[in-house]
């Protein structure tokens, strides 16, 4: 779906004679179609920069990024690339442009020259996909954060992309809003086969992912299934990440000699493992 080859990115210095910031140091990743990938990293690890190269918001300083075989550095392919890979950003208020929900969702297909009846169909379907059909004629600014982000997602879906990249899209939401966004994208991934790339520093959002890519200082330092990655508690902590409470508890108990697995990530699994060890 998306492939990066020795991808490098440098930000220009903030002041004259200052140093440039190397945000990505040769990242080579291959994202499989239909997968649900979480990219984890502390602030400054390069994860957002990486996300922005996926649909040519940023172009590589070195190396290359390929979307379904299309080079993101090729200007003539920009529209095609952005139709395939949509992005949802952190701040819901920065992504909504219209005064009416359905108009905001229709924005992209209108710009792509999609015929009116088709736009109508896509808008209705996109809103249904995110569970916001009843708000079709509402004013976006009156919605909650989670609802706004779902409208932003609907706006992306209306382009019928193959992949959605969420760049810390839940950072400004409360737990309920966060859960709404996560359930929505998981459902889109499962039911429509849309590839999802979720950028976050919230560890627990990676629990249900197919794959977790951990970044630190511009490079990928871990890459595997959540159950392989989370037990590496010391490593994760050393790069400024926390593990979920479940893993922290199991790790602590293991250190005290209890026979518990470290990969019982979910609340239920963790409780089951601890209860079993106590019997």
């Amino acid at each position, binding site marked *: 779906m998306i492939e990066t080859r020795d991808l490098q990115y440098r930000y220009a210095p*903030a*002041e004259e004679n200052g140093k440039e910031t190397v945000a990505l140091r040769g990242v080579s990743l291959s994202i499989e179609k239909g997968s649900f990938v979480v990219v984890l990293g*502390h*602030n*400054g690890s390069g994860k957002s920069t990486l996300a922005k190269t996926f649909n040519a918001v940023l172009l590589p300083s070195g190396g290359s990024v390929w979307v379904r075989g299309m080079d993101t550095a090729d200007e003539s392919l920009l529209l095609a690339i952005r139709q395939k890979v949509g992005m949802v950003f*952190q701040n819901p208020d920065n992504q909504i442009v219209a005064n009416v929900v359905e108009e905001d969702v229709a924005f992209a297909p209108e710009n792509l020259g999609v015929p009116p009846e088709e736009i109508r169909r896509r808008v209705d379907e996109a809103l249904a996909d995110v569970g916001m059909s009843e708000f079709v004629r509402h004013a976006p600014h*009156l919605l*909650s*954060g*989670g609802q706004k982000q779902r409208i932003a997602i609907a706006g992306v879906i209306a382009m019928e992309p193959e992949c959605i990249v969420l760049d*810390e899209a839940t*950072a*400004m*939401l*409360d*737990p*309920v*809003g966060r859960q709404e966004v996560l359930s929505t994208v998981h459902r889109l991934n499962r039911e429509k086969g849309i590839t999802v790339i979720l950028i976050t*520093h919230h560890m*627990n959002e990676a629990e249900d992912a197919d794959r977790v890519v951990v970044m630190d200082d511009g490079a990928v330092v871990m890459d595997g299934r959540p159950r392989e990655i989370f037990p590496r508690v010391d490593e994760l902590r050393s790069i*400024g*990440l*926390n593990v*979920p*409470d*479940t893993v*922290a*508890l199991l790790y*602590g*108990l293991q250190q*005290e000699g*209890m026979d518990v697995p470290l990969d019982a990530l979910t*609340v*239920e699994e*963790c*409780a*089951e493992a*601890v*209860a079993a*060890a*106590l*019997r």
Partner: protein
Amino acid sequence: MKPILEVENLTHTYGSGTPFERSAIKDLSFTVNDGEFLGIIGHTGSGKSTLIQHLNGLLRPTSGRVLLEGKDIWAEPKKIRSVRFRVGLVFQYPEYQLFEETVYKDIAFGPANMGKTGSELDRCIREAARLVGLQDDMLDKSPFELSGGQKRRVALAGVLAMEPQVLILDEPTAGLDPAGRENLLANIRDYHRNKGGTVILVSHSMDEIAQNVDRILVLKSAGILMDGTPKEVFARGEELLAAGLDVPQITRVAMALRQRGVPIDPAVYTVDELQREVLALRRGGASC
């Protein structure tokens, strides 16, 4: 315990008389004690932001009163500005408020508006910078050259420099990564301990609230759902979940263990506590 802020039957209605009329808070009453570290939690739409903007007079009650040290803050409306020097409010993503040429000048804005000058002004600025962990060499930089986390500290320092009696922080760690979050919370804890002022922390993050405050106010749908210590509040985990709120993941693990017959104290809300309880049960040879 002396009350510093008292909220009496506070109601705030937006858009009165229009089709969008909505009471964001209805008949709310509670007291904040001097020196307390209070946490306020509530889902989006519960009235949190509306409430805290009443505490420093940014919003005026539709009905009800807000008392600061026993006096109605709106008794003399023309003097409402002085309330804002005594009750400092740090909004979410405060770095968006930065505007001056240098960090020093930005922090100076608040205390200068209070009338501070000369060495007294300088003292306030430098002390505030120190409290948030900003190095001296940062003071001459432009705020816009700094990282997100550093900008946030500058914004916080700008409020601390006014030496408010009550400090209110709305989601201070929003958008920060785990290390950044822990750093900032440690600064806030130190501030509370060393300055002895009152601190109100508004947050969605149950973990954050649980580990830092003396008392929690849980808001729901324009009213108060619970008011108690963290132990008291998290012991009612099922109620919180039913109210659409989150509980710390570790509390849910404790709840799941109890469901399996393991006798864990319902009020457990930190990983360390649960670890200790489990180890104690193992030593006691518990079986279930």
